[in-house]
């Protein structure tokens, strides 16, 4: 029997997911532990104010645009925040996703209506396309971007696109599209810890470190 879409789907839901999850957990743990195990020298200069709480504050404060910066790059801010927020909403509040996460985590939570998720997906894709155009056209963005940036854009965009097409039963038969969607998510899971997408976990450490370094000097950042 040749490989048909249901076999592909079963592989994606079974062995494919198992590998992807294992690599994701391995990679994320590897990144976090090797980061922590490098260690930091104790700072011998007396702190002006508490550094740990300042670090924690910065972890949260940097979710919002820096003061005065929003007006300098409104498009980048709006598209960037929309994309991240949209991705988060779709990932964690669409019924089938919650069912999948329930298997991994063992608990679940209420979903958002499908119509909200569909609309969010469209908006999120538009935001991502905007960011891509911005990256290509803006001189600064184009200068600092390399192939890796465009590669991770594609990797992040695929799950949105295939998910949207699968939900709408468009382009390819549903079973195949669903299989492709799950495979694209697995590709994302595998690459997350080993590419710049690893910022999903690293930024929390980066914010904490810089927040506490700046915070110990009595400056909130």
């Amino acid at each position, binding site marked *: 029997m040749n490989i048909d879409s249901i076999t592909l789907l079963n592989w994606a839901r079974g062995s494919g997911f198992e590998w992807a999850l294992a690599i994701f957990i391995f990679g994320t743990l*590897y*990144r976090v532990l*090797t*980061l*922590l195990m*490098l*260690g*930091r*020298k104790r*700072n*011998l*200069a*007396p702190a*002006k*104010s508490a550094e740990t709480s300042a670090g924690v504050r*910065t*972890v949260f404060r*940097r979710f919002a*645009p*820096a*003061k*005065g*910066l929003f007006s*300098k*790059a409104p498009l*980048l801010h709006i598209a*960037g925040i929309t994309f991240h927020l949209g991705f988060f909403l779709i990932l964690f509040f669409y019924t089938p996703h919650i069912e999948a996460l329930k298997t991994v985590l063992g608990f679940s939570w209420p979903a958002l209506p499908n119509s909200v998720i569909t609309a969010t997906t469209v908006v999120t894709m538009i935001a991502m396309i905007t960011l891509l155009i911005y*990256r290509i056209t*803006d*001189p*600064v*963005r*184009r*200068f*600092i*971007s*390399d192939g890796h*940036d465009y590669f*991770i854009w594609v990797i992040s965009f695929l799950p949105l696109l295939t998910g949207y097409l699968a939900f709408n039963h468009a382009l390819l038969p549903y079973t195949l599209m669903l299989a492709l969607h799950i495979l694209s998510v697995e590709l994302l899971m595998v690459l997350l810890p*080993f590419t*710049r997408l*690893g*910022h999903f976990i*690293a*930024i929390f*450490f*980066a*914010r*904490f*470190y*810089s*927040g506490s*370094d*700046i915070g110990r*000097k*009595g*400056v909130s*950042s």
Partner: protein
Amino acid sequence: MSTNTIALNAFVEQMDSSMSAYFQSCTHCGLCAEACLFQTETQDPKYTPIHKIELMKRAWQQEMTLTGKLLKSIGLAKPITDDDLSEWEKVVYDGCTLCGRCSMVCPAGIDISGIIRKAREAFVASKHTPEGLRHGTKRAMELGSPMGVQLPALLAQLKHVEKDTGLSIPVDVEGADYLALLSSMEIMYYPEYIGALAKIFDHANVSWTLCSEAFEATNAGIQIGSSDLAAELVERIVSGAEKLKVKHVISPECGHAYTAIRWEGPNLIGRPFSFHVIHILELLDQLRAEGRLKTTGSWDESFTFHDPCQLVRKGGVVQEPRHLMGMFTTGLKEMPDAGVMNWCCGGGGGVSANPRAEDLKHIVFNKKKNQIEHTGVNTLVTACANCRMTIEEGAEHYNMDLNIIGLTEKLAEYLEPNQ
């Protein structure tokens, strides 16, 4: 070792948890560009802050990551060459004042200016440094001051100050509470600062002294980015302070001097200080809060205040100057972005000591010029000798009608005479 291997080695030496977190966090959003005056004023993408740390990031990838090591072992990694170092030297020294605005805005929380400071270690070690900065550092190491100011010159200036103020300036007084440091610019160009100190401490009855063996506060090692040299300069102050058994050391109206002695000092020499380091503005504000400073009269001119980067963002001295100014004037007109996010004068981080960067420094001064013009005033107060110098030069370059004053000396003018 070839120079590029020395550089790579120096990069690797400094890798720690925070570096690792920073290098993993950047997604090239480029928002830091909006925070950097070299980028905003030149519109040249090469001044995008995150680009300035590219070589150190490359070192991290090649030496501290699995994939990087793998690629390097099969010869696919991009090496760090001397050409790279020369190219980046121009953005790392001429195009960065270590003002720290980028570190404040990065959504990922990357302390970009902190990384640039560390990256400079590798540039120094591999001798990829601007000539002017190198020579200033050499003078500082050999003569005790980047400007070549030596003890006889100081003593000569002190005589003038004593004559002007009628107060005696204590030198090498053992057991004094406070040891005051000076920057050579203050000694040579702004000796009125020394007079102001004498007046204020006399007024507030503060026990203080200068140290003949350790009067220079500036740290050329910090400016060029060499911890080895910076540590030696810090040691001079520490041994002076310990010899005189002072309780406190006062950092003068100079930005990087405060960073060098207050924040980097103990880490550079590898042991905590036996004394406290305090910035002159912090001390003055403390005296004010204790009621030991009494002013009379009021300065009725309108003026604006320039926040030195090393004091606000990198030192947390933000409200102190405003409290002090509030004692004798209500004429302060804040410039846009005043306070923690104020823009750099363009001369910090060694730029003002680097003649090669002079044209660029004038171009980026445009930012400060616009800020000042926005307030519509012709007088500017600041609290950093280097900022003061840079702004004076910038104002001259752009033919601005601008009067620049140091905060401490202005405060001294309005002190109530002692009974």
